[in-house]
């Protein structure tokens, strides 16, 4: 071990142990002999410097005499000497690496003090390295960063010189704040934060007085320039090609905001004042807020309202510094354009400075120059007043005497006032620092006045009723909530409102004044304007061709809940609740149009529910996504998340309809204080779980050997329950009972034969997952070997049958949820009837439900077709009416196609009762159809008379609705069938056109309310819903749920 470390010493090794004082002495000798860097000794010097590093670190950890020697001989001076000889990149890099290692690895405080004590480090910091070399740059900035990590109240004195007003570590670092290399910029930010963190008043005063204005004004300009580039990127985007660049720019903006927030959270008050002033008056107000209302392209530096809304949302989501965000929110919510114009007048007579307008302008000189000027100035002043310390004190005294208790009282407003005052800081001033000082004075003089104005304003605002005051920004927000053509801006407005209402930095009173929802705050009123607009978004989302994205809808729901739920109470007005119920009803209708018996529908339905529950919207993440900055698109080819775009194709439209329904249903239930009883379709607590002990007396059990993929074998009994299959082993305690070793949902199961073994089955059960990108994870993948092939066939049939039945029962639950007629119960209960499982072709079950082309097995309408074909004397249909998925305006063609179906089947059924063709996706392959007819023979008993009743019920209501609506040919058709009394009222799809077209009118709402009162929405009629009732009574059948 020891030997190896020495091997490199090679030729020069006079000392046996390189980690020793002796060896350092030798190195010193080498340095003294080679004070001038030449081509010949360069390598030797580099190696010498390198090994000195190693010895020093070793010394720090093992032998302090090493450090003593290093200091005694002033070896740092040799380093500097070498550095100053312009000895080239090679040597520079080595020196910087050495310094990095030295400061990084030193563990003893005293060693550190030694190294810093003679100001050599500062000389190295100010050395003009060749920063065009990326490696030198990287080592240099890392060196500064390493040093900044060592800063504390003691060490800061080695870097900040009060007398000369020098703080090279900081001033040299911030010169690189806009370096093209991101890692360098990050390092600069780290250094500044490490500096601000040190609680040394003198140093911080220096920072504020000499560097804060130049640095922050340049930083703000830098951020603003990025914003303008970002905006340009949005403007010039074609076909979403700019997305890569856009997401970088957005991430950059986020980085900046987080950085600003990190500075503000350090909570160094006077730095924050300067920063707040610059951010507010040079960036957020003139660039972001002003862009909300200006329509014309008068100023070339305007950004688009949607970009500005997006960025403002980010600001409120990330920055919580009270003086900043409160002032900003105040302007947005209460302010008018006078904040941009009045200011000029005010400042005109308050200060001689002529450029007091809030404007996004470039600082007149570069940061480097400002710092240089300020440094020189500092020197001059230092001559006059040798100790800077005095200056600070003096100033503070003055402030104290002038402002006194008033300032404390108005602390919250103080910054605002001061920032308003310092708005007078001129762009045309030579040195901004001077302006800064002027501001401080004018600050004092304007403070009182400003406060009065503010109080007057707020008093006036309180006195006047809401809406009378001109609030162009707020008006803009509300009007942007209109989603008639698109929800591009609406999404951002919702985010912004959400962000403001959740901001810790905004005084709740401000929000309450305009009745914006403040979470967890008791209240008895809410903003009607907001609520009405939000409900309107919901109503639009429920339209078949609504342009509302799911994210927008979810956020609307969030905001509505926030607005009208006060504690555990819901304060929503009846009229608004009625509108909301109307929207929910529409979503129900929309979903009914998509309801199909297809296998995939059930999967989608459950999957959407899982996604909704498991991934609630995170607004912060949403606003980090640059893709929403581009106009909403429908195509998934962009890779944009489904909830952030419009649906594409029938499958996605179905998913969307499902999700809209879920969201509005959940919202409606929550606002009415009702618990959800029907969703999810299977609750985990109802399922059989591993280690449950079951009474299996009188159950059908099939013994088998389960051979898992990795070859583990186990003897088990296979039991098939309503929703699950389970593998049990006998309970040792009770005869006839079994302990569950595995339980899986039948609906997620795939059964196939094993090629060369007629006694074996291959069974895979997938885990239901809410993440569509995740690979389907099998929770069971095994071969089941039975005693003989007869048992094997029985098992296969039982499983396959069970799978179909499990799925069918769930489909019926969905139908019940959608107030659609449900098939009679016999077939469901018939599961236990042995005859049912008789002659099913195996190949049918071999299809994977996850297989290609939606291999579909369980189609309710499909059954209907088959069934009708077989029993065409009965006019009953086991099917619901899955009316066309097309838009409602196509009803004429729909009727036509329905009629043709009718004639084909040779039945005198109402068009709405016959299975509608499914024009968009045909999931029925010939093969399936054939199978289905075979199956339907064996499975479906003749339909019960009650079926007829519920159907005609539906028609009759449609008929009745005709009275209200203009009659349509389609209705006439259905109306003919109206012979029975009406039990169920289902608002037919024809209804949807009216709420869609008009605004939310009271009259209409009343109508809807009427309809709802007549209709027990969640309580299906006993006869048609007999199955359901039955199921609910029967705990065995009640078991349903998704396993997660």
């Amino acid at each position: 071990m020891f030997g190896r470390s020495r091997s490199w010493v090679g030729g020069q090794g006079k000392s046996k142990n390189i980690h020793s004082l002796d060896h350092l002495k030798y190195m010193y000798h080498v340095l003294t002999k080679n004070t001038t860097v030449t081509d010949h000794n360069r390598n030797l010097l580099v190696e010498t410097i390198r090994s000195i590093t190693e010895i020093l670190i070793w010394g720090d950890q093992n032998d302090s005499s090493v450090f003593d020697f290093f200091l005694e001989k002033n070896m740092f001076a040799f380093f500097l000497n070498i550095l100053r000889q312009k000895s080239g990149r090679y040597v520079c890099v080595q020196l910087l690496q050495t310094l990095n290692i030295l400061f990084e690895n030193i563990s003893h405080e005293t060693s550190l003090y030694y190294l810093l004590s003679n100001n050599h480090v500062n000389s190295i910091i100010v050395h003009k390295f060749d920063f065009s070399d990326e490696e030198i740059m990287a080592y240099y900035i890392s060196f500064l960063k390493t040093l900044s990590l060592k800063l504390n109240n003691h060490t800061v004195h080695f870097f900040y010189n009060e007398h000369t007003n020098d703080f090279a570590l900081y001033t040299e670092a911030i010169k690189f704040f806009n370096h093209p290399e991101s890692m360098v910029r990050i390092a600069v930010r780290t250094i500044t934060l490490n500096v601000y963190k040190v609680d040394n008043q003198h140093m911080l005063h220096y920072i504020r007085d000499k560097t804060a204005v130049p640095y922050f004004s340049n930083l703000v300009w830098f951020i603003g320039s990025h914003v303008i580039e970002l905006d340009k990127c949005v403007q010039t985007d074609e076909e979403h090609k700019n997305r890569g660049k856009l997401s970088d720019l957005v991430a950059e903006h986020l980085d900046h905001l987080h950085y600003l927030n990190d500075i503000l959270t350090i909570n160094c008050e006077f730095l924050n004042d300067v920063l707040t002033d610059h951010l507010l008056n040079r960036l957020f107000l003139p660039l972001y807020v002003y862009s909300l209302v200006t329509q014309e392209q008068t100023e070339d530096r305007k950004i688009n309202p949607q970009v500005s809304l997006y960025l403002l949302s980010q600001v409120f989501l990330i920055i919580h510094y009270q003086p900043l965000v409160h002032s900003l929110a105040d302007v947005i919510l209460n302010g008018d354009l006078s904040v941009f114009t009045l200011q000029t007048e005010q400042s005109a007579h308050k200060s001689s400075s002529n450029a007091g307008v809030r404007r996004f302008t470039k600082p007149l000189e570069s940061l480097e120059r400002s710092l240089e000027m300020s440094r020189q100035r500092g020197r001059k002043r230092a001559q006059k007043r040798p100790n800077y310390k005095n200056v600070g004190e003096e100033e503070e005294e003055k402030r104290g005497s002038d402002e006194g208790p008033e300032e404390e009282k108005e602390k919250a407003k103080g910054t605002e006032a001061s920032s308003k005052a310092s708005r007078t800081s001129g762009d045309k001033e030579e040195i901004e620092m001077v302006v800064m000082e002027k501001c401080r004075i004018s600050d004092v003089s304007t403070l009182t006045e400003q406060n009065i104005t503010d109080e007057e304003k707020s008093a006036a605002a309180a006195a006047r009723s809401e809406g009378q005051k001109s609030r162009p920004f707020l008006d803009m927000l509300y009007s942007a909530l209109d989603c008639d053509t698109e929800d591009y801006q609406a999404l951002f407005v919702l985010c912004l409102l959400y962000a403001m209402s959740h901001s810790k930095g905004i005084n709740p009173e401000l929000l309450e004044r305009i009745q914006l929802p403040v979470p967890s705050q008791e209240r008895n009123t809410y903003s009607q304007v907001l609520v009405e607009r939000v409900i309107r978004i919901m109503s639009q989302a429920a339209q078949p061709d609504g342009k509302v994205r799911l994210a927008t809808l979810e956020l609307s729901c969030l905001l509505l809940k926030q607005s009208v739920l006060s504690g555990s109470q819901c304060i929503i007005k009846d009229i608004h609740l009625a509108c909301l119920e109307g929207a929910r009803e529409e979503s129900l209708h929309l979903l009914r149009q998509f309801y199909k018996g297809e296998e995939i529908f059930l999967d989608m339905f459950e999957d959407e529910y899982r996604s909704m529950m498991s991934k609630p919207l995170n607004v912060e993440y949403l606003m980090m996504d640059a893709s929403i900055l581009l106009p909403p698109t429908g195509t998934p080819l962009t890779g944009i998340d489904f909830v952030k775009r419009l649906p594409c194709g029938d499958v996605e439209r179905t998913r969307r309809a499902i999700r809209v329904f879920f969201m509005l249903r959940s919202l409606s239930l929550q606002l009415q204080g009702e618990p959800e009883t029907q969703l999810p379709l299977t609750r985990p607590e109802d399922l059989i779980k591993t280690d449950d002990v079951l009474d299996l007396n009188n159950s059908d059990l099939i013994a088998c050997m389960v051979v898992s993929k990795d070859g583990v074998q186990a003897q088990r009994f296979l039991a098939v329950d309503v929703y699950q299959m389970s593998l049990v082993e006998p309970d040792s305690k009770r005869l006839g009972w079994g302990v569950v070793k595995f339980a899986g949902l039948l609906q997620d199961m795939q059964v196939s034969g094993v090629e060369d073994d007629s006694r074996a089955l291959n069974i895979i059960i997938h885990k239901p997952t809410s993440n569509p990108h995740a690979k389907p994870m099998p929770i069971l993948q095994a071969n089941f070997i039975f005693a003989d092939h007869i048992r094997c066939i029985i098992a296969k049939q039982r499983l396959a049958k069970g799978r179909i039945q499990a799925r069918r029962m769930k489909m019926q639950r969905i139908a019940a949820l959608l107030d659609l007629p449900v098939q009679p119960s016999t077939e469901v209960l018939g599961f236990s009837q042995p005859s049912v499982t008789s002659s099913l072709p195996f190949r049918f079950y071999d299809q994977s439900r996850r297989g290609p082309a939606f291999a579909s097995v369980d189609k309710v309408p499909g059954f209907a077709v088959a069934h009708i074909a077989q029993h065409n004397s009965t006019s009953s249909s086991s099917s619901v009416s899955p009316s066309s998925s097309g838009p409602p305006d196509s009803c004429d063609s729909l009727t036509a196609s329905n009629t043709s179906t009718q004639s084909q089947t040779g039945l005198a059924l109402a068009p709405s009762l016959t299975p509608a063709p499914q024009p968009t996706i045909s999931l029925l392959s010939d093969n399936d159809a054939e199978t289905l007819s075979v199956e339907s023979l064996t499975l479906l008993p003749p339909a019960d008379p009650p079926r007829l009743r519920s159907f005609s019920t539906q028609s009759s209501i449609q008929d009745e609705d005709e009275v209200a609506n203009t009659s349509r040919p389609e209705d006439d058709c259905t109306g003919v069938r109206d012979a029975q009394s009406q039990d169920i009222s289902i608002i037919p799809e024809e209804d949807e056109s009216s709420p869609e077209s008009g605004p939310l009118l009271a009259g209409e709402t009343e109508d809807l309310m009427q309809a709802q009162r007549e209709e027990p929405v969640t309580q299906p009629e006993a006869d048609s819903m007999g199955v359901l009732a039955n199921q609910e009574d029967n705990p065995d059948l009640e078991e349903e749920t998704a396993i997660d």
Partner: protein
Amino acid sequence: MAYAYLFKYIIIGDTGVGKSCLLLQFTDKRFQPVHDLTIGVEFGARMITIDGKQIKLQIWDTAGQESFRSITRSYYRGAAGALLVYDITRRDTFNHLTTWLEDARQHSNSNMVIMLIGNKSDLESRREVKKEEGEAFAREHGLIFMETSAKTASNVEEAFINTAKEIYEKIQEGVFDINNEANGIKIGPQHAATNSTMGGSQGGQQAGGGCC
């Protein structure tokens, strides 16, 4: 010295797992690992060759910046590769991996290659985390995994180079947008003229190597 690509790496993981030692071990061979000397560095660069192409690796240690949210998120974003390091002799450093990974995944660009490293494999007697556990974690989260020792230099080369290979493959597949420097990848200067003087740590390294 000219390079075809420059890859930026970051090293993340709990304090004391040996991040900076790994970094120094990889970037500068002249610092031989010795048992009585713990030495590390927060930045390093080194040239490697993949597929006949010169590739420069620039590695930034993110230690000490955890308290600032803005800094961590920026670091993640600017890197093409990340070494996520834990200490096999300290169970807690392994337990924290999930948090690190979540952070990395949330802030980094989705193509960032993450390598999981169980460091201090030389301290077998004090091992608290089994190699299999590391492997399982890596498999579960789609990471490359390796156990290394900065002390004995075992697997250190491989860890950095395999990560680079993965990034390189992604470039070949067109997954990375190499024209976008925000991804942590830079295309090298077309002409090596400015770099006529041999230099950099790779130069130093060669010099150091010469001494061996």
